[in-house]
């Protein structure tokens, strides 16, 4: 059976951009779906790709791929595939948490397609890659075609998310890169994720920590969770509790309790709020105590 073109639905306008300028000029022409990894856009249920009128394929913009380091800052191109994050030598050396998180992301096949930019813009409450980026105080670079020219802005990742699937990205903006400062030598960062399957899983809970110690006391702390709120979040009360303290058993125990109390998980088909709070406490303790 040959398929005839679909009945009155599906994109009427398509561009395979090869430069950022070409891409944002297309976006300026009207609301568009962006094809990056395709791992959300192409999903059959709800067929987002069929329901859009304009389709922008950015997979040919090579400038958006790759990891670079300059002046103490790392830039990850938005189109960098998750599997490329896994093996990237700069990330392995300077921010291994991102590489480790990538290793726990879905499956090989999905990792080969999904992009860091897509994961950020899709803004799932689970947002696997978002969690470590929050730990790294990441910043997003967005570009649009405005007033006959390229307009660029940077926005902190923390604060970029409005709710499930909703971000501060304007319809004509393209996420081009994620930036963060190279963590110092004493920065310990780890990621943890739940579920019987190691990776192909929307996490029941995901957690990441980044901390520095100064004479055994916490001098820098970032704690982030996924799947415990409408968006990936930091845990400011837990962070405040830990600042300046030595990581004794009591401090760690209490940190777990505070984390469990400050998150706002719901009951859903994957897990109950009880279990999410329970896991958040467990992961907080393990991340702080360096347990597996």
């Amino acid at each position, binding site marked *: 059976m040959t398929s005839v073109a679909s009945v009155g639905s599906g994109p009427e306008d398509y561009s395979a951009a090869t430069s950022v300028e070409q891409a944002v000029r297309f976006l300026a022409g009207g609301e568009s779906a962006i094809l990056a990894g395709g791992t959300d856009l192409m999903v059959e*249920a709800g067929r987002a790709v069929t329901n859009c009128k304009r389709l922008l394929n950015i997979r040919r913009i090579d400038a958006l791929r790759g990891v670079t380091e300059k002046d103490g800052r790392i830039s990850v191109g938005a189109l960098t595939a998750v599997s490329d994050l896994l093996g990237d030598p700069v990330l392995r050396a300077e921010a291994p948490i991102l590489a480790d998180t990538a290793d726990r992301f879905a499956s090989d096949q999905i990792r080969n397609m999904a992009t860091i930019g897509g994961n950020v813009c899709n803004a799932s409450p689970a947002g696997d890659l978002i969690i470590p980026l929050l730990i790294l105080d990441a910043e997003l670079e967005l570009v649009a075609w405005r007033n006959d020219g390229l307009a660029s802005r940077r926005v902190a990742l923390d604060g970029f998310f409005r709710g499930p699937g909703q971000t501060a990205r304007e319809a004509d903006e393209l996420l081009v890169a994620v930036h963060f400062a190279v963590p110092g030598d004493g920065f310990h960062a780890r990621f943890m994720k739940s579920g019987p*399957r190691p990776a192909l899983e929307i996490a029941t809970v995901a957690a990441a920590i980044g901390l520095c110690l100064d004479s055994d006391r916490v001098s820098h702390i970032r704690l982030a969770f996924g799947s415990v709120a409408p968006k990936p979040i930091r845990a400011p009360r837990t962070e405040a509790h830990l600042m300046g303290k030595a990581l004794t058993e009591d401090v760690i125990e209490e940190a777990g309790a505070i984390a469990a109390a400050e998150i706002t998980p719901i009951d859903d088909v994957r897990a109950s709020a009880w279990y999410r709070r329970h896991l958040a406490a467990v992961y907080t303790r393990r991340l702080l105590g360096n347990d597996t």
Partner: protein
Amino acid sequence: MKPIEKKSVIGGRVPKPDAPDKAIGRTQYINDIELPRMLVGKILHTDRPHARIRGIDTAAAKALPGVHAVLTGDDVPVLTFGMNKDNVPLKRDKVRCIRDEVAAVAAETEAICDEALRLIAVEYEDLPGIFDPAEAMRPGAPAVHDERPDNLSLAYKFDHGDIGAAEAESDVVLDDVFNVHYVTHCCMGPGCVIADFDTEGRLTIYSQTQYPYNFKMDIAPALGMHPGDIRVIQPPVGGAFGSKLDVYPFEPVAALLARAARRPVKLVFSREEEFINAPTRQPARIHLRTGATRDGILTFRDVDCLLNNGAYTSWGPTTPYVMMRTFSSHFRVANVRYRSQAVYTNNPYAGSFRGYGNVQATYATASHMDMLAERLGMDLLTLCLKNAQVAGEVSPQGSRLDDMAFVECLTVAGEKTDFTAKAAQYTAERERPGRIKRGIGVASSIHNAGGAKIHKSDGCGTMLKLDDYARCTVITGASEIGQGIDAVICQIVTEELGIPMADIIIANDDTAIAPWDVGVHASRTTFIAGNGAQRVAQKAREQILRAASHQANLPWEALDLREGWVVQDENGEPVVKLDKLLREMHFQDEPELVMVADYYEPPSEAEGPNHTGDMSAAYSHAVHVAEVEVDTETGEVHVLKVTSVQDVGRVINEMGLEAQVEGGIIMGLGYALSEELKIEDGIVKNPSFRDYKLVTAPEVPELDLHFIESDSKTGPMGAKGIAELPTIVIAPAVANAVYNATGVRFRDPPLTPEKVARAIYEHRAPKVAAE
């Protein structure tokens, strides 16, 4: 020419004949088939579990270009089908569960079908839904079917001995309720059917069915047809596991569309539709009381089962037939009482699924054995051995337990795993500090292994022909669903006829050609189709050797067939090449072709109305030992190793046998730990692989398989059926191991991380008052 030695292909590691085509992507599965001028069919399912249909407006859908047929219940005669004749292909007055088929469309493309479905407007009047079977039994509960105001469906009872007296003699009585859950088959090939009528109104249906002959009988009423006018073609399928042992509405719907459109119609489920519409395993609330003496002798089992029938009745509510067998025959028990009641609700309904009631019942019986051992202060294996039947016993339901190896299975399992010592060690370690705990658990069960006489015949027809080149075709009624009957039949025929396996074709996919078989179920196919194949092969062998005896100058019994030659049996001296002989037979004055037929009926009995009868020609046991590691904080259970000891009668294809056992164990692990179709208020909440958790490659434990050959006197070459026991036994083995590790008993699978974490947390934490 040198003498030819006798070489056996039985017991070897034989690749499946259809594997090469599957490996290169050449196999045309039913989902791949396109017929000329074929249309796409799709169903409009209801979006609510209980409502009256006030009206359906199909005008806009019918007017859409490319649409060839739009049907609702009003467009077709009311023709009921199903176990209780309570189902129709397209629903008219009411929808009773979330699957209900309200309308159907046939159109030129999938996109046009989708658009047409969107254009169909249905007006519903919502009715209160009833979802809990206990609630549904109460007076005043909403009636799912108006004709059955009490919502009662099938009920079963069985009695043997005297429960009251047995209880009085018991030193220990365990009393527990086990709630076993909804799971679904997750065949990789989603539901698919192609219907095609000829000019005389006769139907050819391409179906995933596992029971093609009775399928004709069961689908005919839904179409107002005579079963003889229905031809079933069975292309290769992407799995079945019991999901295709009944007629489900999507198949007659496709036929109704094909009839209305006067063109072939192919209907395929999306994965989401598959999750919602494929029949589930039968869930059950099992109230089990088990009695024993202080010496560990089982005295009685008293069982009350409440089954959620769902909105319509398929095979699920008949699983008590098999559950009874577990409760009466899993170990020696002198007194048994079994009661079950299925109750209609507005839920999706259950069918048959590998293990068929035995999975559910064994979860209860094997858990109770573990609990009994602890209560009596006895080692579990010792307790099992005290109650294990030996060859020659007859069960309370009249099963003749010949050719048994239960004791040997238990003994080997214990030796290979050092179970007793480890169980004691892990029990001692339970209370020590440390969040990772190890545990070891044992479970066993019995299942029919020589067919199951649930229909008037449990037989299989087989025909065999040889051509002038000594190429063989075996036409069998047995269906190949991926389980490997093709390899087994080839091996048996090769063993008898000395023809290379590559020269044998199995033809079994067209009811117009192949003879009757009752279907793939009850672990019967190797036993019954294998016996059928052996019988025709032996008939052919005799015919050939008789034809050769003159030129050999020997009686035919002194001859043999080896590697394409007739030879002297005693010394392997070649007599005549087989293909040459066949041509001589064909072109002689009175031509003789080798074309033989046989119908094999196993020596078993249908159950009488009191549920007694030796309903299988053989029975088998399996014992599993599971070793686990539990993270007591996250609740994650990692299965480290599964040791399986199974009585297989005789190994025919060692590789195929391992493959089935491995697959069955992993399927059962999913049942134990992670699979659960979550249905709330009649709605399936997790209809995707994302949220329905199958076991994946990284989670496979170390598997140590042992096969005991009890050499069945009734089985082909001594073999018995094997494929369901691996799925039946593993879940309680894992649950028992988790108990050993944590001291927490789980009566309600699956043992998900959340459930385990919560139970351990509550087990350890002092109860908070007034929570």
